[in-house]
């Protein structure tokens, strides 16, 4: 959306005042009423879809949960097709959270760096091609990331993992027993690459909005470029970085096919991040779906409902932070 950023710097027409002026006129003609009805109707359709998603998933999930003999939250198994079905999301929740956190830890510093590079470091002529390259990363479909991750990236990580094992293996977290590294760590690295563009784009927008006056004031006092960024750009953009990370987190939590392609899952929580095993909500749905009975599908829907609620919370919180920042930020006035 480089158009919007370019034109946003020009003084935008104040919409609020003219809205009021227009509201007093028209709206009595039949054409107007029909058109208003149609457009308001589509807005309502969107809300209805959101409500329907929640309602239908809850309904089917309730069907599955009523027959579950295990504890949905703490059982370490997924035997939804067995005759007394027994399944729980403990392993999935652990895997989802761990892989997403790994992705965030890797992606946020890199993304903030790239955003700064585009907004403050790159030569002006290079800035928009670079932003385009980052957008290309976002355009690559997740299945291609999965294919690339499984066939190209994973075999190349064995060296790094053995090194981590010899230096940090004593912690238990970085233990690695060899073999194909289709582990939560590999998934995390892949997810980091996939969520890089969204974090970069949102933080870049915020960095570009940092008040020019503050930057120039700092420069005039003799600050170096890094000091300008640390004193005026980063404090201004902190909430933007936080919400960008949460949007990235939302993506990472729900990523399906790339994880299903790379991870070799099992239903255990292992201390080691480097050894294969574990699972995520979305990956479990994709890999278990083909062999699931109708009841098994309902069980998968139950786990999908949990995923839906988590992403809803994360995204909602991120959007609220962005919206609140917009209200008090002087740069948008």
């Amino acid at each position, binding site marked *: 959306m480089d158009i919007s950023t370019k034109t946003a710097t020009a003084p935008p027409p104040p919409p609020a005042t003219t809205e009021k002026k227009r509201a007093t006129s028209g709206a009595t003609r039949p054409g107007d009423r029909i058109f208003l009805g149609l457009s308001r109707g589509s807005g309502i359709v969107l809300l209805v879809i959101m409500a329907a998603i929640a309602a239908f998933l809850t309904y089917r999930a309730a069907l599955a949960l009523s027959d579950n003999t295990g504890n949905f939250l703490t059982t370490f198994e997924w035997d939804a097709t067995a005759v007394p079905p027994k399944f729980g999301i403990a392993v999935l929740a652990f895997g989802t959270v761990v892989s997403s956190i790994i992705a965030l830890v890797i992606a946020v510093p890199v993304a903030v760096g790239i955003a700064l590079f585009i907004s403050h470091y790159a030569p002006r002529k290079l800035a928009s091609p670079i932003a385009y390259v980052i957008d290309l990363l976002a355009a690559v479909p997740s299945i291609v990331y999965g294919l690339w991750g499984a066939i190209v990236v994973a075999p190349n990580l064995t060296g790094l993992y053995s090194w981590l094992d010899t230096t940090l293996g004593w912690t238990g977290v970085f233990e690695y027993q060899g073999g194909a590294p289709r582990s939560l760590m590999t998934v995390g690295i892949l997810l980091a690459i996939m969520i890089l563009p969204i974090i970069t784009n949102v933080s870049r927008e915020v960095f570009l909005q940092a008040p020019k006056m503050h930057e120039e004031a700092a420069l005039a006092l003799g600050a170096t470029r890094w000091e300008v960024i640390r004193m005026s750009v980063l404090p201004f953009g902190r909430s933007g970085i936080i919400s960008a990370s949460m949007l990235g987190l939302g993506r990472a939590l729900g990523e399906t096919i790339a994880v299903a392609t790379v991870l070799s899952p099992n239903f255990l929580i292992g201390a080691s991040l480097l050894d294969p095993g574990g699972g995520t909500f979305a990956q479990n749905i994709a890999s278990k779906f083909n062999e699931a009975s109708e009841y098994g599908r309902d069980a998968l829907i139950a786990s999908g409902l949990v995923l839906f609620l988590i992403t809803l919370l994360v995204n*909602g919180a991120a959007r609220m932070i962005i919206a609140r920042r917009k209200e008090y930020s002087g740069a948008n006035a």
Partner: protein
Amino acid sequence: MSTTTPTAPAARAATPDTLRAARLPRWANPLLALGSVAAAVGIGLGAGLHSRVQWGLIAALLFVVGAYVLASVVEGKRQAKDRFATSMVWVTFLLAVIPLASLIWETVERGSKVFSPYFLSHSMGVVADKDPGGGINHAIVGTLQQVALASLIAVPIGLLTAIYLVEYGRGKLAKAVTFFVDVMTGIPSIVAGLFVLSFWILILGFDFSGWAGAMALSILMMPVVVRSTEEMLKLVPNELREASLALGVPKWRTILKVVLPTAIGGITTGVMLAVARIAGETAPVLLLVWVNPFINNNPFEGAQGSLPLYIYQQYAAGSEASYDRAWAAALTLIGFIMILNLAARGIARWKAPKSGR
């Protein structure tokens, strides 16, 4: 001036110029970069490290440390920190380019092995997954139909919602719609798939079909269309609307004849980017379309193929021939999406609303 010139050099020689701090010369950075790359190659060869990635890491490390030390000796601590930050920012950028370059390179190299007109025009109907041969025609047909159907649902709803938000939207409903559009952008694709699965297939009892997949894809597409259209409509100058309304044109005709045509370039771009986004979605298709190795031209009945799903399934088949096909299909999919992207950006540049005066 002429009177001061004889004394100036003498004064400068006597006391160092205190107003200007010492700076590293311009050629210091390239020289240091060259030096660290050379040193890294030396170390790599000497220690017998095979991976070029390790060489690159050593070079980057040498450069960052070298720049810091050099600057702190010559220019002082604050400048050194600044240089350190600058080189770190450059390193992060390079870190992001490496995966993209590797991904595109591998896809093109491995994908071109079986990519041919034959591959594009044949299906997998009579070819076992472990055998060579076959193609992706059924998957292309499926993907195109599913994406077209999804766009047919999502584009009108998305456009009208955006019009509502920009032209009419005030009050609680508009706020709620804005918020939920944002939240909807973040819905995992698998959840959209599960939703259609639960109500269309499990409750209403329909069969797997391209249409079911298209419905899930349209849920993913709507918020993207709304967001981009909204941005574009906001860019249309209010003077245009006012001029039209002042001439007595009804509001709905103003929107259709003045506002939309002005923003049409940006809207088209947004729609194309949204199409590009959903064309690569696998998860909902996996749940709703099933797999069909034969060409099925009817999206409303029976399982269909789909490009992303084809890649997933060929990868899972796990033979040499199926890997080749997966890469070739990935190349086709990436090519399709990149062309859409480039075209979208071309239109955006060509039809950009002129905001200058």
